């Protein structure tokens, strides 16, 4: 694992992973943050590949990039009048200190421990081996995982489902109120469905998401 190509792959993938994660912090727009998060996920999948864990790398892309990130984008679109600026709470100073401590401790442990000899062959045919051990050694966790996923599925549907007769009466007034708070520029059209493109840069790129709930509700 010390050829030039491997170095190139590792350092560029590490840069993508960490850089994407840093941009999640720095980015001022929540949608941009999710897209940088996806970049970081892809970098982690690439690092899995350099560790010759091809099955896990593809599972990573399939689930994190193809499902989880899309779910997050969906959730952002379905909460249209919430804040979108990806701002931080005053907790950011202790959090930053904690981050520094965790990174320092992790790096110290990683670099100072004697990890012993490394094994230099990969598991052959990982998908087969993992699958077989899932239904042999780990069959109980596997079943529990299945039950957990089913419970999460049912729970998520039960939570997110909106009963027609259950809608609070004052909902529309609430929506107007929060709109007025959010955009003092006062675009009455924005309340209908979507700010038209002519609404100017003040409405910004987050305004089309106001169309989100109607589109999602229709779907």
């Amino acid at each position, binding site marked *: 694992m010390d050829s030039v190509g491997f170095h190139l792959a590792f350092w560029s993938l590490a840069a993508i992973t960490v850089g994407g994660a840093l941009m999640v912090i720095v980015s001022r727009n929540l949608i941009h943050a999710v897209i940088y998060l996806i970049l970081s996920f892809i970098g982690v999948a690439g690092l899995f590949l350099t560790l010759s864990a091809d099955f896990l790398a593809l599972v990573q892309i399939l689930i994190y990039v193809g499902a989880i990130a*899309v779910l997050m984008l969906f959730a952002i679109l379905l909460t249209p009048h919430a804040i979108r600026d990806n701002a931080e709470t005053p907790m950011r100073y202790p959090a930053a200190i904690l981050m520094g401590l965790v990174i320092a401790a992790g790096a110290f442990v990683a670099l100072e421990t004697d990890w012993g000899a490394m094994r230099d062959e990969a598991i052959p045919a990982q998908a087969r081996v993992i699958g077989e051990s899932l239904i042999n050694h780990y069959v109980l966790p596997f079943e529990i995982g299945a039950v957990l996923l089913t419970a999460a599925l049912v729970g998520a549907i039960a939570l997110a489902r909106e009963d027609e007769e259950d809608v609070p009466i004052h909902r529309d007034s609430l929506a107007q109120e929060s709109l007025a708070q959010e955009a003092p520029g006062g675009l009455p059209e924005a309340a209908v469905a979507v700010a038209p493109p002519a609404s100017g840069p003040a409405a910004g790129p987050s305004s089309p998401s106001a*169309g989100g709930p109607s589109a999602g509700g229709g779907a």
Partner: protein
Amino acid sequence: MTGALAAWYDFRDLNGISREISEWVAGWGPDWLASFVTGLLGALGIIAIIGPTLLLLIWLERKIIARMQSRYGPNRVGPRGLLQPVADAMKLILKEELAPRAADKMIFLLPPILVFIPAILIWGVIPFGPNMQVADLNVGVLYFLAISSTTVLVVFMAGWASNNKYALFGAMRVIAMSISYEIPAVLALLTVVFFTGTLSVNGIVQWQQQNDVILLVILPMAAFTFLFASTAELNRTPIDISEAESEIVAGYHTEYSGMRFGLFYAVELANTLAISAFFATFFLGGWWLWGLDEWVPSWMILLAKTGAMYFVFIWLRGTLPRFRIDQLMSFCWKFLVPVGLLFVAVAAVERTLLIEEVWDATAALPVYAVVNIALTAATVAVYARLSGTPAQRLPSSPIMAQGRLGGLRAARELAQPLGGGD
């Protein structure tokens, strides 16, 4: 044909050229450079093939659709209109590329480029022959699923950044559809993997070769599910509600003009071609055709099957009207997913009987084929009965079918009853 290495001039197995080059590079350069060069060659070969093929496919699609609708199609530019796609591409390149003022510039400009990445990557695992594969991953099917699921994100970026309600509607529809239809597609491929016992795409072809059968006969429901689900993910016309022009202008690429739109259009066709190739590989035997692959270059067989599948896609587009989104969603969740689960169970039982050697494959596979075809027909019939849409009678004598060949000739005969066909 089993693993024998071909000489570089053997055009039946283009792997020979790539191996010669990489061995030559390895002679003077480091190892990683050799593998890098091999990968680069594969990628460049794929891009070089796809580009011109797309231009041909655009022409073919327009011609065939026109033929189905009793029109002539493009016939002005070049012989038989062959240069029409080139002219269209020139027009798109010369057009001004507009961007909405309120668009999110960074995300708006990226998608036409990003959308190419999965479209090219997905060709990496298609086996064009016993040795002709850019990467014979032992998780090839998973690779296919993972790569094709990332297209959704690019489409979402395009739709959201446009700052246009129709683009956003289109993007939301794409996400909802793709996530829904990924589940039946995975279930369908799961039955394929059950039967072949491998996740490697080349392994699936080899299983079909060893057992002398194409999976389409054994797993008709899986084939249908895969076809329908991939049509949904491709946004092609019977199921193209994400860019339905009668409802939401052009969907997620409403705001894209010039070559940016052209890139979306090209990628859509490239993806259709890739899905055709994957269908041919999974269900039609790939590069293998009952021994014909001994005589004809295997990649030609695969391309022929791909072309046949592409014709099926065009045919569907020319024949069926667009579905509504609620019809599509209920078809996915109320029919394809439960039936897919049922067939996963059926395939598991059948495969277990094979593994346990209750009977051997030569006796079992025909029985399985008959059983599965009957089961598929039964589920479709029951669903049609339950959903309250009985099969409709066709009109007894449609006008266009009166002529012997239908289409243009019939139209001409209708126009000149005494003239006869030319």
